[in-house]
């Protein structure tokens, strides 16, 4: 069974997620701040870490960056109520395999954890929207590496369907492709998001700087 660690600074939320997940996964521990999370993950090396984007002491990004160097096999799924696009994107760029909002149902969350454990990417509608936004306006900006700096039409189509609320299965049926192919497209988008040095991404983040 998938071994999961929950990292979130709200005790109530950690308890809630444990109950919601039930016995679909094995929750082996939880942590409330960056330091104890790093210690816990290094000690137990779980399959998947459910990671809050916003936490005191640097947030989920700090955990990711520290752990990724020593435990590259641990997978991270970001979980947040935050809708600040640049926070979400920066956690994904730091290495998280997906992003879901905290209003997700227990079934969907268990499904997302399984997907991440299998090495796939998990895109919620909101993340798909952020990514489309980040890669928008490709025509008029210089592209450094076309492999990484642009989405293909098919990838855009897949992201749009996710943003419209289609599950991977519904999406596969709609486009007449297999779920595996959908996962391939989504993983490719995730890779581009993480590796692209696209100047647009930084400009995009500053454009939307908060408050």
């Amino acid at each position, binding site marked *: 069974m998938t071994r999961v660690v929950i990292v979130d600074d709200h005790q109530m939320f950690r308890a809630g997620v444990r109950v919601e997940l039930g016995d679909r996964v094995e929750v082996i521990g939880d942590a409330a701040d960056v330091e104890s999370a790093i210690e816990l993950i290094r000690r137990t090396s779980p399959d998947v870490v459910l990671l809050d984007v916003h936490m005191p002491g640097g947030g989920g990004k700090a955990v990711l960056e520290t752990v990724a160097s020593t435990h590259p096999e641990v997978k991270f799924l970001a979980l947040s*109520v935050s*809708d*600040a696009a640049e926070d979400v994107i920066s956690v994904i760029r730091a290495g998280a395999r997906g992003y879901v909002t905290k209003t997700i149902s227990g079934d969907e969350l268990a499904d997302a954890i399984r997907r991440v454990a299998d090495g796939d990417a998990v895109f919620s*509608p*909101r993340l*798909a*929207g952020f990514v*489309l*936004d980040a890669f*928008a*306006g490709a025509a008029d900006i210089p592209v450094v590496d076309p492999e990484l700096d642009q989405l293909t039409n098919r990838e855009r189509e897949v992201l*749009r369907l996710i*943003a*419209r*609320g*289609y599950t991977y299965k519904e999406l596969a049926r709609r486009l007449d492709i297999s779920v595996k192919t959908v996962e391939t497209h989504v993983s490719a988008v995730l890779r581009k998001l993480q590796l692209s040095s696209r100047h647009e991404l930084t400009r995009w983040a500053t454009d*939307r700087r*908060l*408050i």
Partner: protein
Amino acid sequence: MRSLPRPPLERGGDGALVAGVASGLARHLGVDPLKVRLAFVLLTIAGGSGLVLYGAFWFVLPRHRQESAVRSDPLQLWAMGALVVGGTLLAGELGVLGLGFVWPVLVVAAGLGIVWRQADESSRARWFGAVTDQRSHWMRIAGGTALLLAGVVGFLASNHELQAAREGLVATGVVVAGLALMLAPWWWQLVQDLSAERRERIRSQERSDLAAHLHDSVLQTLALIQRRADSPGEVQRLARSQERALRAWLYARRDEDGPRLTFASAVEAAAAEVETDHGLPVDVVTVGDCPLDDRLEAMVRAAREAMVNAAKFAQVDHADVFAEVDDRSATVFVRDTGVGFDPGAVPADRRGLADSVVGRMARHGGSATVRSAPGEGTEIELRVERVLT
């Protein structure tokens, strides 16, 4: 006869030539500014009291408030110039000043004029929060000061008193430098304290804004939730609407010229309305944004109608809305995974979809596509091409 209330006595505003005293007086008294100006000139010629009066008004009257931040009226420049040249030449003719003094005095007057007006303008810019061009500000001050110094030196030189003045100047300079050295730390401290105090004031202002906002929204909602704890549906509705409000407050893209209704925010608002009125949670994702125009507004209304339809007929616990806008077109998808229906055999009670969604989009030059089948959920796609200005 009822007359309009008299405008307040202020200087400046439209039609100001020198400092706006005459035009301000004229506006207040309701007479032609030319008459006021003539009166000042006559009073000046007859004993000089016009000049004194003008100066006194300039000093005392508050500035006119509604004024364009930057104004460059060549007429005003000419008026100033004519006044200075005329005045000096007149003084020369009358023998008040020797002819040798005329040009130095002109140069000094020009320099003073530039520096004073700059001070006037920059304080105004501060009051109205306008952005001042720092470089041109300092260039003008430096230019004005240079003119001033040149005038003074010219004045002394024309009197052959430069030599005598130099010794006096050196002594004065030494005293001034000593004073400056003595007072500099104190002055620096004062400046630091002032800016620290200003920062602190801004910070506490922000804090109290935040506290006020949290009190009005979050705390009120929490209180309501406690009282409604026995009704899960109501609690969920309250929590969702509060989440939406707080998110909008935290992450809304703010424009400098105040809130502006945009396409994305209108879609979000429509979804929030449906959520409140019909109890159907709607998840909205938007990509891109633009100002709202008539066609987009019609599209948002059609999208709202589609959401209401989902709330009424689909028998689902949530709907998804995706809105995307780019340079060429805007699209909105409203999707539910509910019972669905056969679009070819629309029952009479679902005419709403045909009229208020499909019909409305057609009337505004857009299109609407309905994809649905019994048991398959419903997706409505709205689309308009954008009119680029």
